């Protein structure tokens, strides 16, 4: 076991999978010679050739579609979006092609492609660069949507995503790249983490916090603070949004009787709304309070730091929601 960064974990996952399977290749802007806009693909060009680490010009629709075509005929592309904000340029390829070709072809062609990149707000990068769009992709049948919160999850899940025979939208946390976690090294096995399985990041009996990606960390901070007041939070990380591990989430809410969903995206039709539906559907009798939800404000992200902090969910917002659910205002 070693403590490595989330960035390093992704790098290792890609490196190991590329060594294992010659059909895996990486394509995106600045992935090769620049060593990755966020250094996630650092060193891969030196290890593999330009044939397998392909620098693309600014043409997301083009290279996302090239990935789909290559996947159809047997390669396993990893298409990097510099950020998922730019995936909107290519969304036709993801939603109309990658997600649907398996069905449109009556099962003849499957698309073993991974679309990966950072998602969600960074720091002060303005409204066009700060979006959390997971609900757009989680909405679409035919796609899998994975959002790891820790380096451990990132490595195991990226490997699973690369080996999956379906299109996987793999959304990393822009502000998570430097976080570290203990990760088993490859010598002790493949350490794949299955897609579609949630993880309990913290056990607690009083209330369930459901969050993914960066918000897991914020919830853990909130839980620490609440523990000092004797409130024990259980933090459940779905890790995969589609397919959602409703079983594990519901088991937790049925145990604690209270639920706060925390997401960094916008509220209206955000993925947390789907989670809330599932929880009320399966846990109605166990609920002591309505399901709470903490999201970013329903506004495009402003630039100024103080405004950005006001818009995004903070520990105090989660603490307040927890106390509301416990009738402890």
């Amino acid at each position, binding site marked *: 076991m070693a403590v490595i960064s989330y960035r390093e974990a992704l790098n290792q996952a890609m490196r190991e999978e590329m060594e294992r399977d010659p059909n895996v290749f990486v394509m995106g802007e600045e992935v090769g010679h620049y060593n990755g806009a966020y250094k996630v693909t650092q060193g891969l060009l030196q290890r593999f050739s330009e044939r397998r680490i392909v620098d*693309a010009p600014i*043409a997301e629709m083009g290279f996302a579609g090239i990935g789909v075509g290559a996947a159809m005929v047997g390669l396993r592309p990893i298409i990097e979006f510099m950020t998922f904000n730019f995936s909107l340029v290519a969304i036709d390829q993801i939603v109309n092609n990658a997600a649907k*070709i398996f*069905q*449109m072809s009556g099962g003849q062609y499957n698309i073993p492609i991974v679309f990966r990149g950072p998602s969600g707000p960074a720091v002060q990068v303005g409204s066009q660069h700060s979006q959390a769009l997971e609900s757009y992709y989680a909405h679409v049948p035919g796609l899998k949507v994975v959002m790891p919160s820790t380096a451990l999850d990132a490595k195991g899940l990226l490997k699973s995503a690369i080996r999956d025979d379906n299109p996987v939208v793999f959304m990393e946390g822009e502000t998570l790249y430097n976080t570290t976690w203990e990760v088993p090294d490859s010598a002790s096995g493949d350490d794949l983490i299955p897609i579609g399985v949630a993880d309990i990041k913290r056990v607690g009996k009083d209330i369930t916090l459901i969050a993914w990606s960066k918000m897991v960390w914020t919830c853990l901070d909130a839980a620490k603070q609440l523990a000092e007041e004797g409130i024990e939070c259980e933090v459940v990380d779905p890790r995969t949004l589609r397919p959602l591990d409703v079983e594990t989430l519901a088991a937790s809410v049925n145990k604690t009787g209270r639920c706060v969903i925390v997401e960094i995206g916008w509220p209206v039709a955000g993925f947390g709304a789907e989670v809330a539906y599932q929880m009320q559907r399966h846990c109605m009798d166990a609920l002591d309070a309505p399901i709470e939800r903490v999201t970013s404000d329903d506004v495009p992200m402003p630039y100024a730091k103080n405004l950005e902090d006001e818009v995004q969910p903070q520990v105090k917002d989660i603490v307040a929601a927890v106390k509301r659910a416990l009738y402890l205002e």
Partner: protein
Amino acid sequence: MGMVRAVVTASMTTPDSKRVEHDDHQELVETTPEELAPLYRQMLAIRRLEEASAKAYSQGKIGGFLHLIIGQEAVCVGAIAALEKKDYVVATYREHGHAYAKGVAARPILAELYGKKTGCVKGLGGSMHIFDKATNFLGGYGIVGGHVPIAAGAAFASKYRGDGAVTLCFFGEGASTIGGFAEGLALAALWKLPVVLICENNQYSMGTPLYRSLAVEDVSLRALAHGMARDRFDGDDVVKVKRRIAEAVERARTTGEPTLVEVITYRFRGHSMSDPGLYRTKDEVEEWKRRDPLNRCRQRLLDVGMIDADLAALEDDVKAEIEDAVKFAEESPAADEYKKYVVKGQ
């Protein structure tokens, strides 16, 4: 009684200049009955297949959108005749002819249009989404230009693996303005991908004639911006199409470089079955019908030595094939499975 029709005279140039005289229709390419007969047979079968589909559609047996290739058969048949089995074809929603030419049989194509279980994609795709892995037919697509990067991707894979396969990508001139085409073209040129991008310019994007969509009507010129090889010719003679596309295919196979080819052609029917066709005159359509490449091919076949009896036998054979396919489609069971092919391994 009836409405006054707005008539738009089509031309290949701006309204106040003369019509461009393209390639001499009388130019004859050397061929033999052995080469030409199978090409004619394919064109005829496609023609009959499309007519049968139109009839079924008007009877309510085919639903949704139906886009017919009638009038343009020489292009898909000629071009695909230049390929090997391992080569890939990616096409649009007007792709029944391309699928047939690549080797997909009439039965599964028609059954698919009828929404039956025996359709080539089990009734899940319909007219716009014919796919057949056995013949490397990588699909019909509904989003204009969205399939061009996919074709570039198949070519990318061929180059990656060094397997020598070539990809043909068919699209209309209406696609030449959209981002997917532009990006696919740019990347194919930049990375030298073994793809032949074939623009079937039938001079109308739905109801919009060429001069109202493109500032410069020569689609093939776009290749110049990317240093890519290009070609442009009249698609009225199936053997000429085959020869010219074969050059581009050879280029892709030996040097790995792409080509942008524009083939001028004409569709006799509307954009789809719900197109009232008010944007061109009946006279114009009749003029092009008189030069039907199918008839031209038939005459040529007789001219190069096929005897009447053999030709009649060939045509009867086609008739029987399509009638059989219609019967098959009518009698096949309805599609019944739609959850099985959403996620592989589910």
